[in-house]
């Protein structure tokens, strides 16, 4: 299990046993035990009950809302984040450092604050909402509103994943493409994009997974109409408020499995890409 290369090899941090022990303790306390408790609470229900709980029409609809909005937000972020990262790396302009700093704001801000601010802006009386209301488009209290809140939450993931890769990219690749006569489109798709793809995909999945679980910013802007704008985390919350822990945890378990699956697919694609680069196919 443990790989020790030689009996006496100098290490920067002493003791594999100690550092591995600390790692496992932290992971266990903070991640594994809470997740296991989810399973434990869920199995208090009989299999039939469990299935019934997680397939109630209202619950199913909430999964739908959660997945569709999270996916849409992550997709918008994937595009927008890529452009943002590109602009921040490739161009020089006044205020660049401020813009760079702003990217992390969604991490720092309490999500409820973002939710309230966005709701305020996008209701039919808000600055932005009133403009769209004239066109007959409602933002707050619709799926569009949820997506906007989730986009806000997910901005940093794609930008911060792609940015370092773009920064490190050797300009010689593009020069080689230039001399071989690649046009800008071909250079981008054949040379630059394959290089940033793994980072970009991982940014996208992280944003997607984060958006699936987002609660704070969404509850205000969503309006929480069952079957329409009710997200899964809200349904869980509602179950908890009714002291129905078993139902709450079973629905949460579904979300957990979904997130896990997404991250797994990501890891699979990543490893395929890295195999080409590391030379072990």
């Amino acid at each position, binding site marked *: 299990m443990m790989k020790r290369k030689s009996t006496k090899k100098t290490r920067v941090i002493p003791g594999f046993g100690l550092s591995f022990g600390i790692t496992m303790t932290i992971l266990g306390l903070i991640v594994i035990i809470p997740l296991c408790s989810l399973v434990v609470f869920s199995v208090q229900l009989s299999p039939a009950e469990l299935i019934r709980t997680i397939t109630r029409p209202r619950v199913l609809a909430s999964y739908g809302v959660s997945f569709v909005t999270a996916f849409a937000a992550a997709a918008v972020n994937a595009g927008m984040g890529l452009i943002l990262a590109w602009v921040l790396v490739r161009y020089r302009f006044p205020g660049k450092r401020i813009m760079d700093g702003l990217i992390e704001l969604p991490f720092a801000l309490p999500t409820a604050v973002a939710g309230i601010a966005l709701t305020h802006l996008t209701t039919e009386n808000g600055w932005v909402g009133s403009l769209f209301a004239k066109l007959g488009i409602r933002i707050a209290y619709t799926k569009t509103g949820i997506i906007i809140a989730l986009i806000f939450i997910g901005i940093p993931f794609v930008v911060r994943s792609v940015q370092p890769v773009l920064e490190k990219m050797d300009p010689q*690749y593009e020069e080689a493409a*230039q001399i071989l006569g690649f046009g800008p489109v071909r250079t981008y798709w054949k*040379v630059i994009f394959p290089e940033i793809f793994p980072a970009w995909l991982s940014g996208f999945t992280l944003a997607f997974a984060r958006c699936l679980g987002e609660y704070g910013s969404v509850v205000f802007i969503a309006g929480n109409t069952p079957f329409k704008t009710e997200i899964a985390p809200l349904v869980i919350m509602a179950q908890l408020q009714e002291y129905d822990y078993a139902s709450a945890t079973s629905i949460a378990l579904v979300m957990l499995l979904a997130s896990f699956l997404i991250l797994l697919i990501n890891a699979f694609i990543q490893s395929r*890409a890295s195999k080409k680069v590391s030379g072990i196919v």
Partner: protein
Amino acid sequence: MADTMQNYVELQGINKHFGSFQASDNISFTIEKGKLVALLGPSGSGKTTILRMIAGLETPDSGNIVIDGQVVNEIPASRRGIGFVFQNYALFRYMTVYDNIAMGLKVKKIPKAQIKERVDSLLELVSLKGMENRYPNQLSGGQRQRVAFARALAPNPQLLLLDEPFAAIDAKVRQELRSWLKEMIGKLGITSIFVTHDQDEAIEVADEIILTNQGHIEQIGTPEEIYRNPQTAFTASFFGQNAELPDYHDFRSFAELDHVDRVLIRPEFVKVYKQDEKIQYERTASEGIVESVSFRGDRTELRIRVNDAVLAAKRNPGEPAIRAGEAVKVFLYRIFVTRGNEVIPLENLALQTDMVVF
């Protein structure tokens, strides 16, 4: 086209600044068709900038670049008919060897079958048959360089530019690749320019050397000319493993000169004798003490203190061994004396009198 020795590449008064740094200072030279030319110089001497301007990756501030009789200043890199081998090869990591070589042809919308034929023949040329489905990171350094070479040659360029082509390869393979590349370029007859900071590499591989220093050209010539007859102080000090003598008058017997700046001596100008060895020019030899001896396989390198100077010298394996601390006799054949930017080679007068006698 009657003139077969035509100039294929010509630079006319090229200047280039990066901010306040002058990378090229009025660079002019011509390169004949089919020649293999080395742009040689220390780092920061502007050699890579020259190569990149010829390729079209940089634009000169002033001056003209002419390729095949046409001013190419305004012509994009892809239409200059050049192939470029990058220092780190810049192979596309997510493409197979085949795709890397084929990409430059696909861009030109050449039929698939024709591309395959061309790539196959190039793979054969660089002896990488059977590797076409590998990714660059599955290849050794030498193989990657050959892929880069094949990729540059694929669109059939008339001019091949190579930026430090051997820098990223370990010493043993480098030696093989040097001969391989020289042979390959000779076989193809393609005009080639390569950048290097390694004098041995330039001397061994190139037909002609352009020596650059601080943005200007110091000297242009064949390796032999430039090594034997340096025209500038920099050239004299750049080539060979020079030792500098504080005062050459301590050594007999060289012509007396005034206003001397530096006195340079190369190891091959120094002959070392053991105390009991017979010496032809006994009268003009100096006494020295061996400071260090380092064994280099095919030769032994000595550092010998003579008066205030430390000389480098070589000793062949066949000759009797010399140990550190030993007292030896040293005879200097030749020295380079610099005065301003001028170089004056001085022969030992003992040799000249000898010539007269025979």
